[in-house]
């Protein structure tokens, strides 16, 4: 049986298909390979069926349109070493990451959630800024792929200045990490580290610049929600998506503007003037200050968290006043397009930017789905970015 597992792994690598995809294609059983590895019994007839499937596949008779048929082969599907921002990505590269993530969604819903794809690899989560959910999501993603995941919490205060950031990068590099996930409070910090290390670097949020995996998971969650309603498509052409909140300080907003536009959506932004950056029109987004006007005709409403320190007179007079002007209530949501979806990257300030009543609407809010998709997206990113290092055929740099 060991032999068969080895054959399957080699087959998957050779044809650039994931193990869940293999299970689905061969037996209509996505978690099959993972279960096989953890000791599932195998009838000899099943083994024969699998070998037959692989032989047929090799003969050039693919069973259905796999991911490899829809996207350029090998490294051409994602020709970057790192993921520093959505701005570096082409539309087809975004779609490729989303399609790759879709393959992991099913696995994550099964009982056995672990595969051995990244066996023996070390992934370091270097978080220079506090984070709970993003760190957890990356950690789970790495572990489900079988990698050894190490978390480095570096309090922003102690390692902000001097050579330390570069020194830290060089240290991580010397420890032979196979991928480094970075969160840092300064824009461009991920790029700075990426320039100094030999392994792939994933941006988990840098200052007010970008948070690419958040934008990707938002796109995936939205695509799944639309598909579940039977309105699905590959992208968001013709849809109006409103992002409301502190746009100025938000890396989530920046990555989402780029990602949603690449996927064909019209992006609207809404915030008080002091929290709206200059030049968003040049980026193709439409700015609003009147929430009701912005809501009118929006198919999706994405609310952003407002940091509490910005609500005490510096930017906003008070949380109460912010809620009065920009809080998403059930009544306000009625102004959006019928059945408009509600999103929030979390953590939410319930009663400030979003009412609980709205956040918990089962048929409209996809906030928990965003979290779920986050793990799948991060698995896909870790898988794709480590392929060159793992020697997957066609992925050599």
């Amino acid at each position: 049986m060991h032999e068969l597992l080895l054959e399957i792994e080699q087959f998957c690598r050779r044809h650039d298909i994931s193990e869940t995809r293999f299970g689905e294609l061969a037996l209509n059983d996505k978690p099959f390979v993972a279960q096989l590895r953890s000791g599932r019994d195998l009838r000899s007839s099943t083994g024969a069926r699998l070998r037959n499937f692989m032989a047929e596949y090799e003969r050039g008779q693919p069973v259905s349109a796999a991911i490899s048929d829809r996207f350029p082969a090998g490294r051409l599907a994602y020709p970057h070493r790192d993921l520093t921002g959505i701005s570096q990505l082409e539309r087809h590269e975004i779609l490729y990451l989303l399609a790759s993530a879709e393959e992991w969604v099913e696995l994550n819903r099964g009982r056995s959630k672990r595969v051995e794809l990244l066996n023996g690899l070390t992934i370091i989560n270097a978080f220079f800024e506090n984070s709970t959910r993003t760190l957890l999501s990356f950690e789970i993603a790495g572990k489900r792929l079988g990698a050894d995941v190490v978390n480095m919490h570096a309090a922003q205060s102690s390692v902000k200045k001097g050579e330390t950031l570069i020194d830290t990068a060089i240290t991580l590099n010397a420890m032979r990490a196979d991928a480094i996930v970075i969160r840092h409070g300064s824009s461009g910090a991920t790029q700075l580290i990426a320039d100094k290390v030999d392994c792939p670097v994933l941006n988990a949020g840098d200052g007010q610049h970008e948070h690419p995996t958040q934008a990707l998971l938002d796109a995936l969650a939205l695509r799944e929600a639309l598909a579940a309603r039977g309105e699905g498509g590959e992208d968001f052409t013709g849809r109006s998506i409103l992002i409301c909140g502190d746009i100025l300080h938000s890396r989530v907003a920046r990555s989402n503007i780029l990602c949603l536009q690449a996927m064909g959506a019209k992006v609207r932004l809404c915030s008080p003037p002091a929290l709206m950056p200059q030049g968003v029109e040049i980026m193709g987004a439409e700015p609003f200050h009147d929430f009701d006007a912005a809501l009118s005709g929006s198919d999706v409403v994405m609310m952003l968290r407002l940091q509490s320190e910005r609500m005490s007179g510096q930017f906003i007079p008070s949380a109460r006043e912010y809620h009065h002007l920009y809080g998403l209530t059930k009544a306000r949501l009625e102004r959006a397009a019928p059945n408009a979806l509600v999103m929030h990257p979390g953590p939410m300030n319930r009663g400030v930017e979003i009412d609980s009543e709205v956040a918990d609407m089962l048929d409209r809010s996809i906030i928990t789905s965003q979290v779920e998709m986050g793990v799948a997206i991060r698995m896909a990113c870790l898988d794709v970015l480590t392929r060159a290092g793992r020697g997957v055929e066609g992925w050599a740099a």
Partner: protein
Amino acid sequence: MKQVRPLTITGGKIVAPHGIVDGAVRCVDGLIAAVGGDVNASEGDQVISAKGKLIAPGIVDFGVFAIDKPAFHFGGITRAALMPDQSPPLDYPSRVNYIAKSGKPDLWVHPLAAATRGLEGSELAEIALMRDAGARGVATGRNWIGDSGVMLRLLQYAAMLDLVVVTHAEDAGLTGEAAATAGEFATRLGLPSAPAEAETLALVRDIALAELSGARVHFRQVTTAAGLDLVRAAKAQGIQVTCGITPAHFMLSDLATADFRTFTRLSPPLRSEADRQAALVAIGDGTVDVISSGHDPRGPEDKRLPFADAEPGMAGAETLLAMVMGLVRDEVIDMPRAFELLAAKPAELLGIPTGTLKVGHEADIAVVDPEAPWVVDRRKMAATADNTPFDMHGVQGRVRALVKGGVAVTS
């Protein structure tokens, strides 16, 4: 070193205020003794042949942050006005006195006295004592003085002492911790930014206070279209204001920050392309009085950081001349005007008898080949640090010989 033997620079094109004249310059006892087409070397003179290149006044670099002799000599700079932002700040007569002598004999440093104690912008420093210790002007330092009352009293005091006041034109309340000019690039990169109007606001106030106090005010860097318009209008009204700029702001726009390269982190930050074009117009029409290097060498501990955390500043002394020669080639200005911006006007602001090739002036002279091509390479710089935003730019214009006080400078 005192000049012991007369020196004649022969066979060159002399950059005179009203045009280029073929001829020679003879220097005796540290001063220019004769200039023109009929000047010849006397017997016993040391002779430097200009080989048909330009004989120009040595550059007076107005407002540098470090004394960096190899870089200054490479760039044809014979005198530098030093900003008070030193460690410790130049807010005390003994410090001024000490630093004024630090470059001699082959580089003269003219300290600018700190306007306020510790450059904190609240209490006036001992400006008169510092003047007598060698300060040639007063400067607010890297920052703007936010308190208008302090600024008015400073200007009144400096007017009484007839010292030029060098100010930084950015409203600190608007600027805050900004590292970029608000606009498309700052938004895309997520950099903390301030609107270009931060400069306009500072200029409006300080022009009004200059008029009220009668002081001579020099805005070390004016970098925006609106700011240059204000200076132009103030000059037309006869208010005693002057302004300068550094090459980065007429060569580069905020597009250059797009890859988070910290060598383009400057103060004020790089502006929009429209502002850059306005700066070229203002240099051409005479609104800008001074072009200086803003020389501020920064090592990796200040620059190998995320963009917003890095310190602002660039090492500019070596590239200053070549960038201004570029303006001549592009016909923004002519050659005499180039050296007015680099030498004559800064010398006038400091009240020192140099900056033009005139009999009786200090014999600070550069022999310049304005066409000589070279590539700026940060790995081969003379400066103490390599933070140039012009790395790998192909440029033209190089110093062939440098004379300070009638004595040839050898590196």
